[in-house]
């Protein structure tokens, strides 16, 4: 079976009109398309960088604030400059884009403009017809970033053809990988709504600020909906991670349970040996039994992010990751229940008799001291830790 189509959608800089694009995104994913949504008020640079890293087939731009002729053209130009003219550009803006404008935009390399009144199904059909064909053999990548992005795509697409699935996993699970890689790999998991994405983005800000040469990779996951599509929306909220020193890739789970995608392991292995200082992996919101990162796997340090509202303390006994995580974070520690949560989780961790750490954070707060502490812990220890966090608080 062919892989789902991946496209990126966004709203231009200084434009907050996201009502249309939200509706269109939902329609796309309902028809099997994977949409990486970058959000509103986005610069040309952010859009092109994201499209290249995500190796999408096309960029859909929804513009309602004017200046569209220039903006669309700049996106096409920058793609060309970066050697990524294989990524197509389409879009719309209701009645704000006139027929003459659209003609001018097409002249500058835009594929298609949808006018007011275009039905959602017409747009979906267009995307499937024009961006859904199997890719021809691809030309050599014009930059290391494009090369990496294309390799990730290949891994993901190969996973779809079942034959290579088992073999590939066997082949790449060996020790060779672990010895050859350079990056420190940190895994984030936890229930949906705990604030993993915000927490990671706050850590990225600190990574970038602390050392102006540091490079980070992020592998983020969102669930596929029934059928094949998925809304991959982490980029929209990860404002600090839209940076030239951050390589981010959004993956859909494509039917696999447990919080990761069938291709995660191999993609992670590739990123880990690709010259990043840190590789961060974020699972989808997980359930109690989830165990996304294996002991002695490729992840050096596992961070479990909890929401204070996990229910009764009995629930804690059932959360498998509480046994495995190196660091447990109670995020949203400004909520009323946070103190209770802290002490209940503390007791639960004591049963394990391992040096697991428990930290309270308020990730939504700028310069939160809890996040600072988590950052120090992650950076502070040079040695990779497997399963155990050896830091003492």
């Amino acid at each position, binding site marked *: 079976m062919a892989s789902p189509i991946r496209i990126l959608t966004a709203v231009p800089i200084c434009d907050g009109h996201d009502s249309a694009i939200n509706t269109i995104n939902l329609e796309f994913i309902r028809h099997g398309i994977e949409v990486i949504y970058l959000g509103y008020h986005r610069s040309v640079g952010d859009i092109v960088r994201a499209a290249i890293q995500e190796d999408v087939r096309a960029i859909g731009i929804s513009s309602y604030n004017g200046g569209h002729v220039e903006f669309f053209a700049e996106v096409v130009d920058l793609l060309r400059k970066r050697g990524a003219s294989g990524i197509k550009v389409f879009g719309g803006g209701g009645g704000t884009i*006139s027929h003459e404008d659209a003609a001018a935009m097409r002249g500058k390399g835009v594929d298609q403009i949808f006018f007011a009144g275009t039905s959602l199904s017409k747009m979906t059909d267009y995307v499937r017809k024009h961006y859904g064909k199997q890719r021809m053999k691809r030309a050599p990548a014009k930059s290391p970033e494009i090369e990496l992005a294309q390799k990730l795509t290949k891994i993901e697409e190969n996973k779809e053809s079942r034959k290579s699935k088992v073999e590939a996993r066997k082949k790449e699970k060996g020790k060779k990988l672990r010895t050859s890689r350079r990056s420190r790999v940190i895994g984030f998991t936890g229930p949906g709504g705990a604030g993993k994405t915000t927490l990671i983005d706050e850590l990225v800000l600190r990574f970038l600020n602390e050392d102006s040469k540091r490079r980070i990779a992020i592998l983020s996951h969102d669930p596929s909906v029934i059928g094949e599509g998925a809304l991959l929306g982490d980029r929209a909220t990860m404002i600090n991670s839209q940076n030239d020193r951050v390589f981010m890739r959004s993956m859909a789970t494509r039917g696999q349970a447990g919080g990761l995608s069938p291709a995660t392991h191999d993609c992670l292995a590739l990123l880990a040996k690709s010259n990043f200082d840190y590789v961060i992996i974020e699972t989808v919101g997980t359930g109690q039994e989830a165990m996304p990162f294996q002991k002695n796997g490729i992840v050096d340090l596992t961070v479990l992010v909890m929401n204070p509202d996990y229910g009764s303390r009995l629930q804690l006994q059932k959360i498998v990751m509480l046994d495995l995580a190196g660091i447990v974070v109670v995020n949203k520690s400004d909520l009323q229940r946070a103190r209770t949560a802290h002490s209940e989780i503390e007791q639960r961790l004591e049963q394990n008799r391992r040096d697991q750490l428990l930290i309270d954070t308020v990730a939504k707060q700028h310069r939160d001291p809890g996040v600072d502490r988590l950052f120090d812990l992650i950076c502070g220890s040079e040695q990779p830790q497997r399963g155990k966090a050896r830091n003492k608080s």
Partner: protein
Amino acid sequence: MSKLGQVVEAVEKYNHFVIDQVKRARSDEKFGGELINRWNETKAKTPVTHTPTGLPLPRLALPEIDEPGEIARYLFGEGLPGEFPFLNGAYREMYLEPVREIETGSYGKKASANGAKQKAGGDSVRPPEEPTRLFSGLMLAEDTNERFHYLTQHQRTHRLSTAFDGPTLYGIDSDAYGVFGKIGEGGVAIDTVEDMVRLYDGFDLGSPNFSASMTISGPAPIIMAMYIAAAKRRFGPKVVPKLRGTIQADIFKEVQAQNETIFPIEASLRFLTDMVEFTTREMSRWYPISISGYHIGEAGSTPVQQAAYTLSNGFAYAEMFTSRGIPVDQFGPRLSFFLDCGLDVEYIALARVSRRIWAIGMRDAFGAGPRGQLFKLHTQTSGRSLIAAEFKNNLTRTAAELMLAYMNATNSCHSNSADEPFTTPGEEWIRLAAHGQAILLEESGIFKHTMNMLSGSPGMKAVERAVEAAILDEFREIERLGGVLAAVEDRFQRSQIQNAAHRYEQQIYDGTRPIIGLNKYRNGEDDAPEIKLARTPRKKQQLQVDRLAKFKKKNAEKAKRALDKLVDVVERGENCFPALLEAVEVASLGQITLRLQGVVGKFRPMV
């Protein structure tokens, strides 16, 4: 329980109170008799007006009831126009053509957020028909200034409504990366206090006949400070208490719907409160916030959601200002509202019900005096209801919406132009839109002879009951989520609005929501208007960038000191508005935004 929970209780309690009064009027003969006397007196005192054909009509129409219970239900449940709980109107008379008497109400010429045309009770003593107030802003400050002068050249009162360009709305300087091309598009480019001086050049900012409206929220406190600084440069410090006008400054609706937020929510609210504390104390004629449902409606909410979120946002602001220690009777009268009016039947009573809930909530949950109970409303017809296909039908849509808005006794109204699905409106369509209001209010006899001409039909009452119950349900849900701020952070309103928008689109596509010319009675031919786009020439954009560079260079040293001081005040948690007033003298909008973001962070968008 948050204040919103108390508001729900207050409305429930008030509704019981009304029923008790009805019973009492029926059982207590003395009380019933008093009510009947009062009722008859009101009727007897109502002046008689004559239509152009000579037909005599009362200036206030009241239901034909003589039973004390029903009279009690009317007087307590609805109130006469201008009386608590203000269901029928915030003022005793509105829209009526002048007769001999002089109004006693304190209603002034409120500056409105997006007002094109100002119509209000109390107009009757002024010289006839004045002023279209156009929402305008284009290119650079001097271009908009020229437009302002053109628009007001024949007007006695100068009421300007200012639209800002995208970079300004997002607190970004014109020389920032990636914004060239957006400078002066869709509004005026403002980077510095010098731009602000140019923008209103030639207008007497301290005059009682002048008011300025500024439609901006994210960086509102900075822009407000620039306005004050510009006024002081031109007229000296004594002008400050005389300044009249409004600034939108509605952070909650930005986060819920319009997406023009630049600081994290709590920091934004804090800066807003700093500004409100300052202006309500020092500038008693300024409206420092326009609590707006319009953008919530335009983003796709249902009418009930629009009213419920707007009102609850309003109560949340009131709670915030109160807990800062600002007296309710200081800020209460300085709040105003802005709602959308579309074609759904809810709109027949949406603003009426909102006015009632606001009055009860402010009186009983916040202890506000009479002036703080008024829900002063600006309405704009729905932009979202306008359709590109066979766009001239939009004239009819807007006319119907205007009818609904006036049936709700809105204090002022803006009617959209039929060509708005395509572009910023052209002059021909603007004129038609403004004339639509004049035709309804001045040409037709629907509103000018009699107050309450269309109030209180059985259908309207049915909608009122259903809408009020639905709004209270929304309040309860928000309360369950921990109040407005917690619900906002939980993305509750956002996701509700998005779901409603999606359902609306679905209904259009499956035909259950007929849109004439689009999915029904379609002609097939689109008759797009001829569009003349006013683009900002690159040369002008470059001029703005160059001017800004000069300003920055000139003030580099001073800016550093002023910004350090501002940051210091913010870190200490004091009211930062005075420091902001100093900073805008030497620093640009973008410089201030960036430094503040360094302290409080950037807004993290919600999806």
